[in-house]
């Protein structure tokens, strides 16, 4: 036959190694970006406001929380910015997980008919959520610019590392959940509850120090809260964007403690720990996904 080109040999095996999974995902990065675009496109196709809707949600939450917390007397200066940071970051993780969990099941029409590395689907969900985060970050930047808010650049450089870690963590969970959801649709329902609890366990609309102080009052280790990986990843971002750890009155007296008044390295260390955990979790997720995917096409 024509020996013009020697096409590469592809193997279909019952199992693939973690490395092979990663290589395959890289080879299909074009598909990934297409699927991300598809997900965004399909979601906003028939809506007049389109992408503006992704801004409407955090803005609405911002208004609600600000009103509620003002009434409760738990509000503090520039509370809106504090909430906005938390909500935007949280929305990335919760959307990644919620859409990621359904990535395989809702694309059953593809899984049964075309061959491609299946983990691209949950990863595309994470990708779409990341695009949302980027867009809404634009909104945040606009708010900061308009209000001439003072950010703390000494801490702000931690944000990309926190986001990167969050992407790895969200990807790991999305891959795991997407596979689990194929076999047990209960996953989706359970996930809703877990996300609700997780939201309130993360210092998104209340300050981190509120919890530490309560724990100190009970003579407990005051940093239990950091065991929540989202906390470890969120507080460096809040520290950078919100710009201060404590609120002082005109005399320089501390009125309210928001975040630990510690160095960048303390914050970075926390990110580092979660990073290592996330990478391990990612490897585990791929491993389990590999076991599960053999039967995807049949079960769906």
């Amino acid at each position, binding site marked *: 036959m024509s020996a013009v080109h020697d*096409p*590469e040999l592809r*193997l279909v095996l019952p199992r693939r190694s973690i490395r092979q999974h990663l290589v395959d995902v890289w080879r299909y990065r074009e598909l990934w970006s297409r699927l991300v675009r*598809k997900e965004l496109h*399909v979601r906003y196709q028939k809506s007049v406001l389109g992408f503006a809707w992704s801004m409407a949600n955090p803005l609405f939450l911002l208004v609600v929380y600000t009103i509620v917390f003002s009434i409760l007397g738990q509000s503090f200066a520039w509370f809106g910015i504090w909430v906005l940071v938390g909500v935007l970051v949280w929305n990335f993780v919760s959307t990644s997980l919620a859409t990621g969990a359904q990535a395989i099941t809702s694309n059953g029409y593809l899984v049964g008919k075309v*061959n491609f590395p299946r983990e691209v689907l949950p990863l595309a969900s994470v990708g779409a959520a990341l695009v949302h985060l980027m867009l809404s970050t634009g909104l945040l930047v606009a708010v900061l610019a308009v209000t001439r808010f003072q950010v703390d650049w000494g801490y702000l450089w931690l944000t990309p590392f926190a986001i990167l870690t969050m992407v790895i963590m969200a990807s790991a969970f999305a891959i795991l959940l997407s596979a689990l959801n194929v076999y047990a649709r209960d996953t989706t329902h359970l996930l809703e509850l877990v996300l609700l609890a997780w939201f309130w366990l993360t210092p998104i609309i209340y300050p981190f120090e509120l919890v530490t102080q309560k724990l100190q009052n009970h003579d407990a280790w005051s940093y239990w809260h950091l065991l929540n990986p989202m906390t470890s990843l969120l507080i460096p971002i809040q520290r950078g964007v919100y710009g201060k750890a404590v609120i002082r009155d005109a005399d320089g007296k501390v009125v309210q403690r928001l975040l630990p008044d510690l160095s960048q390295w303390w914050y970075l260390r926390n990110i580092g720990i979660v990073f290592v955990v996330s990478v391990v979790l990612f490897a585990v997720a791929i491993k389990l996904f590999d076991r599960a995917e053999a039967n995807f096409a049949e079960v769906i």
Partner: protein
Amino acid sequence: MTAIVATGISKKFRMSQSRSSVKDRLARRGGGDHQDFWALRELDVTVEQGETVGILGHNGSGKSTLLKCIAGILKPTTGQVQVRGRVASLLELGAGFHPDLTGRENVFINAAFLGISKREIERRFDDIVAFAELERFIDQQVKYYSSGMFVRLGFATAINVEPDVLLVDEVLAVGDEAFQQKCLERVENRRERCTILLMLARITSGGSAAGRSCSITGSRSPTPLRAKRSESSVSTSTARSTRAAPEPSPIPIPAFRSGRSRFGITRSLALIYVLPGEPVDLAIEFEATEPVTDSVLALELHNDRGDLVYGITSDAIGAPCDVVRSEASWWCR
């Protein structure tokens, strides 16, 4: 060079009632309320590069499972498949098309599924659209397409990305006759460079494109598709193994000479299959032991369900059919 080498592939399906909720799964944990079904067992397949192979088998014989394993959609329970080059599978035309996206977007996504770069698909895009004859509708959402348009776009994408291996599952039976013809021609053209695997439930128009056919039926183990062992209905037998394009090969039919008869067919050209729209030459030679006058020859064509498709008599066309004591032949076209 071999294009497809599958060694010892088996595929087990687990049959059970819907186990979609945790409660059900827990309830079943102890009972083990499921049955295993082996769709394929210990199957070896070797296909050379550039070969066109048809695989015959009834519904449920494992054709599609085999094809999906080769395509990588299903992972075999045991064994491995090696495929050389780019694989386009036409398991269902337009598979992977998202209804809410336009034809254009779907072509790009479909190409991405095959691992094709954006630049390459941009280069071929016009060919694809032209082949599918969808120039006017390419920016319409696919959900507004007719099923014929859908299928045309699916086929056009798959065939125009120049796959090294093309897996086709009974899809050539879709679309109108003209398009079918075009598809067959294109498959024919690709033949030299492309390995084609056709799955057929029965010999149809698509079968004529196959240079070699194997069937998945009994429990024998002949050459091209080797099945070591098989449960129920899977294994193979060779129907034909010539590489050349199928030419009607003469099959001798024994002369019909019973006591009462004075007239019998000695030989006829048996057609294996016919391409749609292709002229057919039929030659019937017959022999009479004594002079026959005033005879009429009738020809009836039946499809595989036994329905009469066409019928003609020598009488009706005014062809004389007098046989004088010896051999004669009758052609029709």
